């Protein structure tokens, strides 16, 4: 007997995996893992602001993502500090600020649960949210396909892409928006602290078995879906926390691919 809530959780998780896997490849190609992490950590602040303004949380997350990208761009101009140092500062100050704002609104908004945002609450998704997630998935994948060649081109070399006529800043900005949307959706599933794992682990696992970018993106999507299904299964049958179980399933998959690819 399988309950509705586990079916809902599966549907939501699969919707997320189908975007996290492919977008994660670009994150890995462009060495944006730390940027993704920063975006995820700052998402709590976005959620808290959106809730206090009585808006949809996703708007807050995307808004904070844009602010963050602008801050990063501005701070990188001076070139005294490397990007990873700046991201480390932004990431943790945004998370700390998010925790403070959250604690303030917690007193005013009853029933809002910090743990659900930090570690995900996939078993609580409802059908309206699932419908929105699938609409979002279709939208994100369409934009991703539209930008596809430009994304590979800027992953290879931005100067060369620019002389070919690619609007590099636009592509980077749109990709950042897509990433913020994926992270907003992923908060429900694996939580703010584990979002980056769902972006980079399936992509890293897919690399060993791919010889073209398209193969890697498809395989990464499949690996992410498999991690969601296995993680939720383990969570359901062994009563494990769902988000962490999904991430551990992805990580086990990664080590398994390392071992099998080392044989060849």
């Amino acid at each position, binding site marked *: 007997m399988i309950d509705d809530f586990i079916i809902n959780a599966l549907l939501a998780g699969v919707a997320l995996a189908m975007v996290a896997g492919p977008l994660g490849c670009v994150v890995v190609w462009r060495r944006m893992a730390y940027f993704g992490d920063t975006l995820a950590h700052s998402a709590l602040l976005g959620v808290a602001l959106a809730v206090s303004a009585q808006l949809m949380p996703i708007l807050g997350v995307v808004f904070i993502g844009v602010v963050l990208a602008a801050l990063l761009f501005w701070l990188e101009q001076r070139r005294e500090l490397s990007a990873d140092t700046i991201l480390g500062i932004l990431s943790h100050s945004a998370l700390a600020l998010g925790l403070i704002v959250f604690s303030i609104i917690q007193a005013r908004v009853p029933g809002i649960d910090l743990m659900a945002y930090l570690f995900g609450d996939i078993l609580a998704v409802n059908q309206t949210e699932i419908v929105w997630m699938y609409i979002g998935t279709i939208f994100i994948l369409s934009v991703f396909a539209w930008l596809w060649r430009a994304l590979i081109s800027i992953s*290879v070399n931005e*100067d060369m892409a620019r002389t070919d006529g690619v609007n590099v800043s636009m592509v980077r900005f749109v990709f950042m928006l897509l990433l913020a949307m994926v992270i907003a959706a992923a908060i429900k599933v694996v939580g703010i602290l584990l979002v980056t794992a769902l972006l980079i682990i399936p992509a890293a696992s897919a690399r060993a078995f791919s010889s*073209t*970018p398209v193969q890697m993106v498809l395989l990464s999507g499949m690996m992410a879906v498999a991690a969601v299904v296995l993680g939720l299964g383990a969570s359901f049958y062994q009563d494990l926390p769902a988000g962490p179980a999904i991430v551990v399933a992805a990580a086990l998959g990664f080590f398994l691919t390392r071992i099998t690819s080392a044989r060849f």
Partner: protein
Amino acid sequence: MNSDTGNEVLISAENLGYTIRGHQVLDAVSLKLHGGETVTLIGPNGAGKTSLVRILLGLKKATLGEIYRKPEIKIGYVPQKLHIDPVLPLRVRDFLLTAGRFDNQQLVVVLEEVQMAHLLTSPVQRLSGGEFQRVLLARALLNRPDVLVLDEPAQGIDIIGQQALYRTIKHVRDRHGCGVLMVSHDLHLVMASTDRVICLNTHICCTGHPDDVSAHPEYLKIFGQAMEGLAPYSHHHDHTHDAHGNVIPLAGDSEPGQHEAGSNDR
């Protein structure tokens, strides 16, 4: 300089200056590139060659001066030291397709021009330095460029391979009739395949036909030690690249002796 001989100007720069954090990288640089012409920028490390190229391409803004690019100009660019991270699975075919939509036949045609058609499905990370530079050249040709801009196209290739590559570049230019702007730090290798040399060391020291430049006092002052032997020059260059020590006295005392351009240094 020779006035236009019917060949239209593809790119020109007037009095460019570029300063970064108080350090003068380029000073009063003017140049013109015409269709069908090969111009080689030569100069020691740190002379501002790559900065100049990036400004001409519009990748960087000059601090001073004017740039003209022919409207709708198509540029095939080969950047310096392109490294493709192994985490990106990319065959030569996929790499070429980052330049636009092309069918297999078109890809094979450009690869044949650089003698690399057999590598169509090889991973780019497995190519040798020489093979990769040729594939870069093929990619630059895909969009039928008006001008090829090649920043140190022969780096990381042995001498024999370098000569072969320069022959290929010349051959490609003759076939396509495009202009070529090349960066090099070794005049002797590019002499045979270049029409005009611009010797750059923050400012333009001298310019002209390769034979004239190689005998020019300004050129000899910068590349003097390298001229002494027949042995590979690159090591010597590394030690004479300290531009400031050389340039500042030079700019003062030998100005009147210059022929051709360079006339715009103060």
